[in-house]
């Protein structure tokens, strides 16, 4: 029978979207749910996501944010090189670090760097950025198919799923393998919509693969109000309310940048 799993990443302290996902994914037939990391950043009250994840027993891959906060590092290791990107990354990291309880930091420190699944004989590798580097940006328009095939071969996977960039995309590769970026549930996909995105991966008994991206509605107005109450930057709140990215934009390739308005 078909095996169906839900995969999400980039929670960014958006506990309201996380709660919505945990109701939505089982309704769509997902037998299991996996998280690809970056639990904190950007949003309010970072401790609120942990009880939800533990209660639902969600396996979590460690993201760069989780690695940084968990190991008391000086910055988020997001991999930005532009001064303006790093300015906002700093605000976000300092707030998240200061407001995460010690026991949650320890929990994140001990998360695995990858999870491997076998779904109807298909080898699935779950990671954060890429299988070789936790904070590698794999963008839809700057990652060749040949490179993705090489990753599948080097890491002995039929399907690789990552997050990190916060934008969802999928490529069926010429050699029959797949690469999926499951997107982020922490902030919208720079598309002018307030919903956030996750992936449903279905593999039938003939090992045929179906990938669906699910737009997830949640109470974004409430999140925005919580962010304001926490004095988070108005730029972050604007993204939640409008669906357009306002910060950490310089790292985007041209086509991804051109799709947004800033």
């Amino acid at each position, binding site marked *: 029978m078909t095996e169906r799993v839900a995969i999400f990443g980039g929670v960014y302290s958006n506990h309201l979207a996380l709660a919505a996902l945990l109701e939505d994914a089982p309704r769509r037939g997902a037998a299991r749910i996996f998280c690809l990391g970056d639990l904190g950043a950007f949003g309010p009250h970072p401790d609120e996501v942990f009880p939800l994840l533990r209660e639902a027993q969600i396996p979590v891959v460690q993201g760069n944010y989780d690695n940084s906060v968990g*190991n008391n590092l000086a910055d988020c290791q997001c991999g930005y090189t532009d*001064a303006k990107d790093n300015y906002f990354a700093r605000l976000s990291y300092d707030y998240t670090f200061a407001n995460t309880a010690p026991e949650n930091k320890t929990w994140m420190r001990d998360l695995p760097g990858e999870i491997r699944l076998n779904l109807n004989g298909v080898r699935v590798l779950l990671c954060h950025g890429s299988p070789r580097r936790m904070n590698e940006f794999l963008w839809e328009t700057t990652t060749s198919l040949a490179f993705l095939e*090489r990753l599948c071969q080097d890491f002995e996977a039929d399907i690789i799923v990552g997050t990190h960039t916060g934008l969802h995309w999928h490529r069926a590769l010429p050699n029959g393998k797949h690469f999926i970026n499951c997107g982020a549930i922490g902030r919208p996909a720079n598309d002018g919509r307030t919903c956030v995105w996750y992936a449903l991966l279905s593999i039938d008994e003939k090992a045929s693969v179906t990938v669906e991206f699910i737009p997830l509605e949640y109470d974004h107005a409430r999140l925005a109000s919580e962010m304001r109450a926490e004095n988070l930057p108005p730029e972050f709140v604007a993204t939640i309310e409008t669906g357009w990215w306002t910060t950490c934009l310089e790292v985007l390739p041209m086509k991804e940048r051109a799709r947004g308005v800033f």
Partner: protein
Amino acid sequence: MTATDTDRPPFLPLTSLDTLWFQVAGTLCNLRCNHCFISCSPQNHTLGLMKFEQFKPHLDEAVQYGVKEFYFTGGEPFINPEIFEILEATLAVGPATVLTNATRFTEEKIARLAGMRDASEYSLELRVSIDGFSPETNDPIRGPGTFVQAMNGVRMLVAAGFLPIITSMRSWEIHQDDEFLREFKARLAEIGYTRPRMKLLPSLKIGQEAKRDHGYGKYEFVTEAMMVGYDETQLLCHNSRVVSDRGVHVCPILVDKPDAKLGVTLRDSLNGYRLRHQACITCYRFGALCSNAGSLEGNRLARSGSEANPALGTTPTQN
């Protein structure tokens, strides 16, 4: 290690061939900038224009190796009469970035570029070199009239939906970066570029630049001792090679240095390279010099290197 050993230039293996550059215009350029690190000019034939038939086998080989992205430079790539065919073939298999002085664009050429951009699932990035925010600050470096010409090129690119990355070599003190960017962004806004992407580069004190400003100091070399705790993924040569009409070289900065030519095919170039040139210290200090990402401010990498986090993982060995 003895003290003598640690003073040696370090050997850096190629960990993963992710990025391939093509020196499509060789050392030929319509301009004669006085900071050019490989002294390109209309008469510098050290490296020639690449023909499509020379380029294509390297592209095919790159696909075999799983190269992730492609970059095109010179000289000025748009003086190569086959540049459009070369870019079209590239965009069928991966993303392309072209480094240009934007002085040779016409509406017709930009329409052709926009067409191939829209037909591809990959990004076509244009990186435009302009070294000042006015004729007074740019033209002494790049030549009379080049500011107006290049800004006109940028205007046409933006009108066609491109978001070119404006690249400037820092000929001012690093603490003046913000002022430079503010001035330049105001000028770009005047021609319709309201969300400009900017990249500042440190100067490479070789070629013409060594005459314009000054060369490297006697002791400015990378040594083995300096690599301890350093994040070598910041160096282009750990994951990149450059192809010219003469063969495969270690990096675009050293492309005219005889010892930096590694062979004829990519296969010949998969071994590492000893960082024996003084220009290597600029990459060491600033990192990400040639990629589209901005360079970090000086010395920051040396710090982040010592805090390098093993959990971030490393790249698998090539082969």
